[in-house]
């Protein structure tokens, strides 16, 4: 009979010890915030353009994490971002939702035609990343390296003096393309398919 008590006692002691260890670990190694939201946010392009219908990238990341929103609503990120999020969440990638816009060919940057700027400061208020410099009734300009190309400054400008131009980094930004040549077996495969069709 006393064996049972010893066994029960030992188990009780053990459970208390492990409970204490786990409880300590839960407090000591607590993860701040929602790690999934942060991981998704890290994959988004941070253009902060709102095309996904959320006020910025992190709210969209949160909506994805909560399962409220599809992963294909971010045009600046495009297919590669969708693929990355799909990999992270282990879901099937979907094609970009055209309702929210299309992926741009190249990265863009806003450029103010400075002699036409009337210094209204409206674009400054619109820019989500404070990439525009200027003061009331003074000429404004875009800090090229900080502009995310979100287009948000275009509409508020009363004199339409802002253009979106493709970024041209010149020689330093140049890099090789993937060799375009199709491999020989691909060529024969294509030919065969062509014949079949």
């Amino acid at each position, binding site marked *: 009979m006393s064996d049972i008590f010893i066994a029960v006692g030992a188990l009780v002691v053990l459970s208390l010890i492990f409970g204490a260890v786990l409880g300590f670990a839960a407090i000591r190694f607590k993860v701040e915030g929602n790690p999934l939201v942060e991981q998704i946010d890290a994959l988004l392009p*941070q253009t902060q353009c709102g095309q996904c219908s959320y006020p910025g990238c992190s709210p969209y990341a949160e909506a994805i994490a909560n399962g409220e929103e599809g992963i294909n609503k971010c045009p600046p990120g495009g297919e590669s971002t969708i693929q990355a999020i799909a990999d992270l969440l282990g879901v099937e990638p979907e094609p970009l939702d055209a309702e929210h816009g299309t992926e741009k060919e190249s990265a863009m940057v806003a450029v103010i035609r400075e002699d036409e700027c009337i210094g209204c400061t409206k674009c400054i208020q619109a820019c989500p990343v404070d990439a525009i410099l200027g003061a009331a009734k003074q000429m404004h300009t875009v800090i090229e390296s900080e502009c995310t190309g979100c287009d948000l400054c275009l509409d508020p400008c009363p004199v339409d003096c802002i253009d979106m131009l493709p970024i041209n980094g010149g020689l330093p930004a140049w*890099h*090789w393309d993937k060799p375009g*040549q199709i491999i020989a077996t691909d060529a024969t495969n294509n030919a065969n398919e062509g014949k079949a069709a």
Partner: protein
Amino acid sequence: MNTSFQLHDFVGGIHPTDNKVQSTNTPISFAGIPSKLILPLTQHIGTQSKPLVSPGDTVLKGQLIAEAQGFISANLHAPTSGTISAIEARPVAHQSGLSDICIEITPDNNDTWVERTRITDYKKCDATQLINAIQAAGITGMGGAGFPSHVKVSADPAQINTLIINAAECEPYITSDDMLIQERAQDVISGIHVLAHILEPKNILIGIEDNKPKAADALIEAIEKDADTPDIQVVIIPTKYPSGGEKQLIQILTGKEVPAGGLPSELGIVCHNLGTAYAVHNAVIKGEPLISRITTITGNACAQPQNYEVLIGTPVEHLLNISNTDIEKTSRLVMGGPMMGFTLDQIQTPIIKASNCIIAATKQELPDPAMEQACIRCGMCTEVCPAQLLPQQLYWFSKSSNLEQAEAHNIADCIECGACSYVCPSNIPLVQYYRFAKGEIKQTNEDKKKSDRAKIRFETRLARQEREQAEKDAKRAARAEAAAKKQAEKKAAAAANPEGAVEKKIPTADLQLLQKKFDATKAAVAKSKDKIAALEASESPDTDKIELLKGALEKAQTKMKDAAKAMAEAKKAEKATSTANADKGDPNSPERLKNKLELAQSRLTTAQTRLDEAKAENSDKVAALETAVANQKQRVQDALKALDESIQQTNQQNTTEIKVDTEALKQKVLAAQTRVDKASERLNMAKEQNLETVGALQTGLEKQQAKLDEAKATLASATLEDAK
């Protein structure tokens, strides 16, 4: 000297046909001054240099024309004297075939030198002085990459124990270092001495492949001739591509491997190209900046393959012409070697500091790459890779753009030697895939950096906006509180003072405002009227304008009318309130009764005068008027009686009031007295000067006197009553 040396080996490597003999049979000759020199501002790794000249300027040979921007950048000098004819974008010697900013010089063919400052005895100089001289001369690595040399020699001498001079020249076709040594070994050794003086290494090794016996002999001879030579060792290494790779040469000579992503200086080693040593000699000993180099012109399309001393900026076209190259036969024009060089699209592309070779190849010599086949996983690429990578794995990852995996397989350590492509039986352009992947990785990293910055900026902005909103809210709350307090105070005041002082004020303010508005509209109307008049009076009246102005005038007029109306209403309202307020007072107060009496009296007087008039005219109204006068008299009597009664009443009620009254009366008397005094004074003055006003003043004085008497009388009666 080299017999005792323990050689090592690196893994992999290949043995392509070296094709070097063609260009080593003729001595180096000067390529001459071309009709134009094109000098790109970026000939080195690092920041673009800044031009110091503008088009039209004349420059001398060796003059600084573009200045280094920052430490990792290089100076640029004019290779000959002449005029700056343009500073603009031109196709440059770059794999991309893109254009970049260049300075174009039109030579004057005088080749006039700028004043040169040479260091007579470099041994007396300290390292900093010599490094400055190297930096000023704009020397960059002559082997291909073009890394600014002063950066490399700025290593801490305490940590450097070996200086390696790279004379391996392992790539096929290229013989520029070979010929340079054969003809100018003494200068090269002198340059090495200068480098050794700066870096103070324990060992100095020159690595040279065994396919250049003449050059090796020349070096050894030069070292033996040089009396005070520190121990320079010429190490002859077996020919194997790519033994001239920095990391590979270090491994052959020392057996040490440079860690992935690390620098040779971590092993205590500095490695310089042989051409760089020669440039250092020119800069320090002769005081000449880097303005020319030795370049090999070769290839089967070239009739006289040889090495030339070429001014930097010479268009490739000029070299092809002097070496009698058949441009028709040239199927590919390569700058650099056949393994690591790149194809030039344009023959105007200039020679830059790092251009060691031009190959004008025929179709048979460098055929178009064969059709790429599928990888058969033969593993030959892995065998030859000098960096001990897994080329076929890298190929798969690069092809599928799996950049993470490519990075994990150390694609960054690939030296792009092309050995893997050379051996691949499936003709896969492996290096092209790696270059693409490396570019993508760089781009992705930069994008990531940018997006991280954007995120921080976005969040900072949100935080700022929140803070501003909070501040605004706080201010608004404070203002609302203050307003509520004021309101409460006002209410309290209103409660204490039930006469409605508050309400009374408002209409007056309104009235003032309306008055202002009215005045403004009036002014506007006047103005537009003037304008219309002026326009109509002018010689060519602009009818449209007049119409417009008339419309405006009408509008202004209606506005004015509205304003007047509003004002009248406001005035009425004010009167109503004031009478209402007055009515609230006691209708039987002595003042009011007095007013009434006075009114009645004045009416009586008018009635009386009218009656008199009527009587004088014998009008039939006389009778009616007489009754009216009688009525009026009765009213005056009534008023008088009421007043008397009321005065008596108030007297009984409050004696102090009378006291105040007497005080006021006394004051009145005094005031009247002074007025009388003043009037009499004036009268006297007028009399003295015999003025016309004397009569008027006389009557004025009399009136004042009467008033004074009256005041005195009332005062007397008041004090009398007071005494009662």
